[in-house]
């Protein structure tokens, strides 16, 4: 691959449960190019969410090497990982995870709160909410929105810090088909206009086909063909 952005080399992950180690990833090799769209499919328990967490530096591999944009990130401190998440990644979750005490705009601004720099947060929030078509809902609360709208807010939040890598875990899993359509279109539009690298975990083959330049199948903690 000409310009690899993400490189995983023989990455393993095992969790301690009581006295025994439960292996979840058994030596994953994966390279994702800059601007590439990758879908990860697999049954539940196949390790795809764990892989996504490791890609997003929410979790660290038990062994193996993770190079991000040419830098080894497998041995960074917790603080450095926090900063990296803030500056490099955008997360989209199946259940949105919007904070119900905050307005839509405040939710979108959340990643900006944790970075240095004084650009106007509200302007950026407005810009992003316009992108996802919710600029009129600025001061609403998440529970006043439909599921599809909430996921659009979550995508706006994920984009707040100009992420280089957008990570989505079952982004359409909790939505009806109409809302699902809108979210898929939004991802396509975001990728086309921003060129963000996209990794999506899903168990829906149609979603995987539509959003992935490449579809990766996982089983038993290994990447298959």
């Amino acid at each position: 691959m000409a310009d690899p952005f993400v490189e995983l080399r023989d990455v393993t992950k095992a969790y301690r449960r009581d006295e025994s180690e439960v292996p979840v990833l058994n030596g994953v090799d994966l390279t994702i190019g800059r601007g590439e769209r990758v879908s990860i499919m697999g049954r539940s328990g196949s390790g795809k969410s764990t892989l996504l967490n490791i890609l997003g530096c929410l979790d660290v591999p038990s062994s193996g090497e993770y190079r991000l944009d040419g830098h080894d990130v497998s041995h960074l401190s917790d603080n450095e990982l926090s900063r990296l998440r803030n500056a490099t990644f955008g997360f989209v979750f199946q259940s949105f995870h919007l904070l119900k005490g905050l307005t839509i705009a405040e939710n979108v601004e959340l990643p900006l709160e944790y970075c240095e720099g004084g650009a106007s947060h509200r302007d950026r929030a407005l810009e992003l909410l316009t992108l996802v078509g919710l600029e009129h809902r600025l001061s609403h609360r998440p529970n006043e929105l439909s599921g599809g709208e909430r996921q659009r807010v979550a995508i706006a939040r994920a984009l707040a810090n100009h992420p280089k890598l957008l990570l989505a875990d079952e982004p359409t899993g909790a939505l009806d088909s109409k809302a699902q359509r809108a979210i898929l279109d939004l991802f396509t539009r975001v990728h086309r206009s921003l060129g963000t690298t996209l990794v999506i975990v899903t168990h829906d083959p149609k979603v995987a086909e539509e959003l992935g330049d490449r579809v990766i199948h996982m089983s038993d903690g290994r990447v298959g063909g």
Partner: protein
Amino acid sequence: MTRTKVLRRSLVQFRTHPLRTALALLGMVLGVSSVVGMVSIGEGAQREILASIEALGGDVVHVKAKDVPDEKVGEIVNDSRGLNRNDLSAVRSAVGGAAETGYARWSALGVTDLPVSTYNVKLVAVEPTLFDIHRLKVRTGRRLLALDDVYGRRVAVLGSDVAERAFPGGALGKRIRIGYAYFEVVGTLEPKRAGADLPLDPESYNRAVVVPFNTAVEEVAPPDTYKEIDVLSAKVGGLAETLAAKRALGPVLRALHGGIEDFEIIAPEEILEKKRATQAILNVVLTSIAAISLLVGGIGVMNIMLANIMERITEIGLRRAVGASKKDIRDQFLVESVIICFVGGTIGVVLGYAVSFAVGWAFHLTVAFAWMAMVFAFSLSVGVGLVFGIWPAMRASRVNPVVALQRE
């Protein structure tokens, strides 16, 4: 991460959970208000003691005749003549030559035409200097003067109670009969405050008819066979010197009285020290109780912060995902508990004073508005917020974001 951001984040949390915040607040309010209440009532009691001692002059040593039962007077009368005016010069020289002195005799009023019941009204025959030494303040008319005493004038000054009850329309110029003589009322006294349990209760001046000493001797009643005066007071340099004066006086008077302790020397400093010692014990007890309630308040805050972590675990996970460091999460939770405690402390201080002033009003206690107690309570509540907030905050910061984000 700027401070205002952290602050705003915490306020959002309070907006989202008003009831829970209010309950945590309540614990702190009660804790701090009990601290403030205890301290201000305790401090008030201290000042009350001081004020009651000041009422008869804090810088005065009193010698009070001890009552000797009539049947025993015979046994001691050959050795001692009781407290009398001859003791005066000895007292003067013992406490320092220039000391101001005054004496008084307290006796039953006897026959009188005062239009009130007089069973607890006393006839107080004084040397007029006592007006200064005992700090008797004139409300209307004039005080007794040295010449009243020298010429045996038949004039009287009424205590506030007597004056108000006997002559509601004004006592000045009225003529009253005491024994077989008529006296002109030339003045009335300001009321004196109650003196807790001083051997000499300042309040008894409120129920007194005060007349010049010599007039009383000539016109009303001859002196006792045994003792001539009941109280002899000498002004010394200040409160701190009263105990020294007492120590100097004791041997002198004992020698004059043939070794018989038919007198009692009252030094305000000594009384004050005794009172303070009891009060100090009481204060320790009260403060411990208050500290326990503050502790309970703090535990309440900790409890609620811990419950917060469980409920907001996905929030923590999400914040971590978008870039919050452990320190950011810790600070957010810590600031929340400190704010709860600070606000609770503020309300508690106000409430504490309100309650203690209400209690003071209801039970006629002196309540002090102590600035120190306020500062103390404030810093204590912030301290409680830090101490009881740090553990939940550390726990929140250690939440694993992966696990947290799996929760729904």
